């Protein structure tokens, strides 16, 4: 039942990676370049820095694509499993709307909420000595966000019968905001932007990072939904033709899911 969904998810992840690569090249790489120029100038002034094992050309082309591809395929596969859990459990919603909602929840839980607390940083920002601490803080924040978003979705479903779908969704969003807000408040802050780092570069880099992640999630959610909807409809069409004609039994459930 899950096989076609998982395959579709991973293929959609490849498309997402290609589109994300285009966005990253267009919006992100120039800002990475400015940040590295800042870093090189600083290192030259301090007499530090050294040779890099991988050239910038490799990093900004094949390296960038490899990283995005690995991320996209794995995320697409995981998305399809999350979709499999959700399918048929959101009332009358079809495949496209279900996939779009799962992707939205994933984007908010895995990127947007953690990123608002610990935003993406270009090269040269961040003290190498605190990378361990910053990594665990980022993943802690991601874990909290993801858990709260999933919990919020499940709670909204539970409350729907009692408060109606709209109010149940609002209550869950409110609960999510409160819990995530508490996490923002209690987790330590990170202030590591070096003196003199251009604010425009930082802003544009963060917008580019947002665009790359939004591209990945939007592609996965919308394309997966469109393809799944198509498969569901063609299975239903085959089933209805079968019932009128030769009397083929079984249908959507066996063919699609």
């Amino acid at each position: 039942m899950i096989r076609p969904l998982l395959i579709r998810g991973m293929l959609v992840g490849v498309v997402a990676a290609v589109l994300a690569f285009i966005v990253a090249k267009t919006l992100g790489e120039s800002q990475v370049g400015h940040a590295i120029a800042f870093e090189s100038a600083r290192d030259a002034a301090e007499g530090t820095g050294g040779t890099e094992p991988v050239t910038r050309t490799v990093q900004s082309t094949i390296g960038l694509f490899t990283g995005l591809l690995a991320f996209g395929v794995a995320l697409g596969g995981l998305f399809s499993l999350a979709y499999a859990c959700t399918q048929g459990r959101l009332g009358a919603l079809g495949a496209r709307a279900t996939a779009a909602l799962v992707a939205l929840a994933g984007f908010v839980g895995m990127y947007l909420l953690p990123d608002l607390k610990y935003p993406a940083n270009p090269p040269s920002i961040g003290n190498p000595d605190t990378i361990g601490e910053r990594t665990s803080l980022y993943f802690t924040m991601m874990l909290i966000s993801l858990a709260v978003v999933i919990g919020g979705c499940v709670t909204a479903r539970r409350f729907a019968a009692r408060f109606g779908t709209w109010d149940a969704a609002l209550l869950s969003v409110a609960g999510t905001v409160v819990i995530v807000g508490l996490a923002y408040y209690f987790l330590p802050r990170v202030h590591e932007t070096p003196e003199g780092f251009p604010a425009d570069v930082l802003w544009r880099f963060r917008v580019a990072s947002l665009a790359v992640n939004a591209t990945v999630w939007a592609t996965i959610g919308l394309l997966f939904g469109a393809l799944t909807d198509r498969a569901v409809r063609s299975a239903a069409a085959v089933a209805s033709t079968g019932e009128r004609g030769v009397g083929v039994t079984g249908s959507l459930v066996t063919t699609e899911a």
Partner: protein
Amino acid sequence: MAHPAVLDAPVARPALPKIPLRELAPFMIFGSMLMMVLLYFVGAEQGAVSVVGGSYVHEFVHDARHLLGFPCH
């Protein structure tokens, strides 16, 4: 997969089937494990901790890691 022409026919969308949670459980456990490994390699390998020696993996996917929003050096 049916012939594309059948898609034009006005077929009502059937309710989506629920996949039993029992069926999903092993996939979800595997998926969660995979997710941790993925996040580790794209997000953290050779930053805070390291499995493969040196900094080659880190530097190779350097730009993707930055742009995806993971903490980096």
